């Protein structure tokens, strides 16, 4: 198009047949970023990727260092994204293993981005999960620290608690159960057991408003979610809130949802998703709701009165920078406003501290970053920094109490209680699909034979082909034309420093 400035080429999918098509990502004169592509059979297709070309361009330079998967399962035959397993051209190992344990769900959300099946539902068997756990543990050199259970609705699985016990016994300290909260709100005993097993809950929470709730979830669930949060808080279950941001429906509520997350003591993270148009609901949902990552960041800034700005977020160092943006906040036990980490340490230091993981964990890099930040704030004698210094001192006193030693696990929990994280995770659908991003995905759905499939590829292409999730599974098309290997990206691995 006249006036377009090409930012990069990639391979995408036709939004109708899902065959691979060449695509151009361009900056348009209005400052937005668009993907332009054309399918021989279905014609030209354009989709807006971002409202801000300069943000898109600068963010895209912050590529992660390549971290090849522990093992590959497929040679490149059809090209990305048709050889998942992972294939030999995949560029990131699995940092967030996702295990889909059931096809059954007790809700039918209009924005549901997966396919579920309640008639003759699939429930993962114990041995199937044992096999997955074995593969994952081996692939992580015996140091697997995180697993995410999803569905359907995992809490309806008859062996969920057995799975949680198995994961705990395998030494995984961050076991997360995705949930809509309906069963948890009704079953306090289950919440108690989750607490006893050290499980964490990732609770979908889209809106406080009746109309928006109906539009997004098909029901007004605020009372249910509130009851669920009360029980999770009562029993000390670490919780992540997952709102799906949809333009014109609930985007104006993101600040309020964030405030809820900051207020509740057991909520550790917010993981804000941009709406994605895949699955049984999402594929037919109105495209007017599409929001880019940067628009969510701006809306967060607007609705929190600047508590968090786009500059307070850094890309995850183990994923494509356009997929995950992360901000950490230091809490004030006295009730003062939380302080984003980027206000007392350089963005590059936060990025380095995140290093090999999706979540901040105690590490020499984090210690060094915090120590450097303390020294700098102190040396510069900025009166405004005094509150930050006192909060950091309180944090150290909680993590390493001098009055009476605590266990390593208690020490780690004390550090987690002092901070909260806000993640913005932008999934792709067939319209926005970009193989450059897919090849760097670190969150994968896991199978018993050791196969892993990046979650966007899984949601867009693979799940609908499985009889476990669809009564009539879809067939593969030709699968031709996907990018077969990936050229090095400018600044790859440098984190843009």
């Amino acid at each position, binding site marked *: 198009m006249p006036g377009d400035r090409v930012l990069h080429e990639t391979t995408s999918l036709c939004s109708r047949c899902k065959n691979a098509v060449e695509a151009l990502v361009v900056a348009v004169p209005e400052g937005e970023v668009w993907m332009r592509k054309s399918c021989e059979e279905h014609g030209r297709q354009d989709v807006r990727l971002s409202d801000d070309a300069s943000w898109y361009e600068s963010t895209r330079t912050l590529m992660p260092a390549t971290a090849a998967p522990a093992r590959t399962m497929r040679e490149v035959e059809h090209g990305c994204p048709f050889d998942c397993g992972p294939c030999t051209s995949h560029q990131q190992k699995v940092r967030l293993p996702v295990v889909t344990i059931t096809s059954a769900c007790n809700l039918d959300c209009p924005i549901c981005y997966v396919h579920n099946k309640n008639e003759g539902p699939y429930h993962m068997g114990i041995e199937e999960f044992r096999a997955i756990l074995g593969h994952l543990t081996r692939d992580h050199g015996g140091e697997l620290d995180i697993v995410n259970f999803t569905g359907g609705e995992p809490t309806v699985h008859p062996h969920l608690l057995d799975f949680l016990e198995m994961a705990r016994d395998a030494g995984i300290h961050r076991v997360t159960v995705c949930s809509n909260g309906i069963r948890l709100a009704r079953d306090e005993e289950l919440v108690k057991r989750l607490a006893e097993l050290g499980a964490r809950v990732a609770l979908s929470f889209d809106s406080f408003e009746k109309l928006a709730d109906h539009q997004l979830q098909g029901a007004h669930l605020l009372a249910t979610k509130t009851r669920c949060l009360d029980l999770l808080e009562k029993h000390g279950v670490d919780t992540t809130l997952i709102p799906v941001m949809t333009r014109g429906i609930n985007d104006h509520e993101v600040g309020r949802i964030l405030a809820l997350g900051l207020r509740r003591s057991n909520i550790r993270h917010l993981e804000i998703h941009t709406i994605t148009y895949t699955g049984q609901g999402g594929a037919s949902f109105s495209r007017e709701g599409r929001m880019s990552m940067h628009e969510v960041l701006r809306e967060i800034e607007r609705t929190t009165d600047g508590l968090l700005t786009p500059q307070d977020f850094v890309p995850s160092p183990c994923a494509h920078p356009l997929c995950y943006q992360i901000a950490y906040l230091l809490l004030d036990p006295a009730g003062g406003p939380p302080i984003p980490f980027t206000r007392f340490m350089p963005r590059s230091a936060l990025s380095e501290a995140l290093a090999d993981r999706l979540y901040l964990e105690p*590490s*020499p890099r984090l210690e060094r970053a915090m120590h450097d930040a303390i020294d700098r704030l102190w040396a510069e004698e900025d009166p405004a920094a005094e509150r930050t210094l006192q909060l950091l001192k309180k944090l*150290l006193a909680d993590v390493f109490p001098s009055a009476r*030693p605590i266990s*390593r696990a208690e020490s780690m929990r004390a550090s987690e209680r002092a901070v909260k994280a806000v993640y913005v995770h932008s999934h792709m659908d067939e319209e926005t699909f970009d193989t450059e991003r897919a090849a760097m995905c670190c969150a994968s759905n896991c199978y018993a034979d050791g196969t892993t499939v990046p979650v966007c590829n899984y949601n867009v292409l693979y799940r609908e082909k499985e009889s476990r999730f669809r009564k009539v599974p879809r067939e593969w098309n030709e699968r031709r034309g996907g990018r077969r290997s990936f050229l090095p990206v400018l600044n790859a691995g440098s984190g843009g420093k």
Partner: protein
Amino acid sequence: MTARLQGKRCLVTGGSRGLGLAICEAFARAGARVAFTYSTHDDDAEEARARIGACGTPALVFKGSVADAAHAQQTVGALAREWGGIDVLVNNAGINQILPIALVEETDWDLVMGVNVKGAFLFSRAALKPMIRARRGHILNIGAFSSERVIESPVHYAASKSALRGLTEAMAREVGRYGILVNLLSPGLLDVGLGQMVPQQRLKEYLDKCPLGRVGTAVEVASAAAFLVSDANTFMTAGKVLLDGGL
């Protein structure tokens, strides 16, 4: 065979938990009469009293801050009345704050130096009176490997433990003529105290450098302490014993 500390009258500061408690238990098992001080947690002290009692004779317990001169004098005075004297003093009470120098304020410095250095001075000074009268005795100061090795350590804590080395050497020289032996025992990371809390990655770094490849146990340090204050130690004074697995 006679127990190593049979009949010895031993006072351990900070004896209600961790290394202090392990030392009390080791001494009691070796036949000693044991008294200990503690500062804050009554429940810990009661549990410690029961555990020490189960090892030998009932323990005498005193609550107070080691940095309080009156507490030191009253404790030693009470033991002199109860036992007729003191044979062994272990200056174990200590405090640590994991803080970079930027966050160490004057009150933090005073607190750590007060407990770790002034406390050892006050209790030593009080216990020396009956020891000089008896012309015998053992004083054992519990240091830390951070005062002997170049590792990252909070400055006030490292300074306080280094001060104990000076205190040990000077005191040993001054009171040696009365047959009083003064030594310093400096453990590395242990299965109690800071060793319990140190982040996994830090622990791994430490263990990678440690020839024995593990943290020490409080029982191992207590066993070494029992030797150093026993009659088997007749010639070591002003000694500095590092017990850190060869770090």
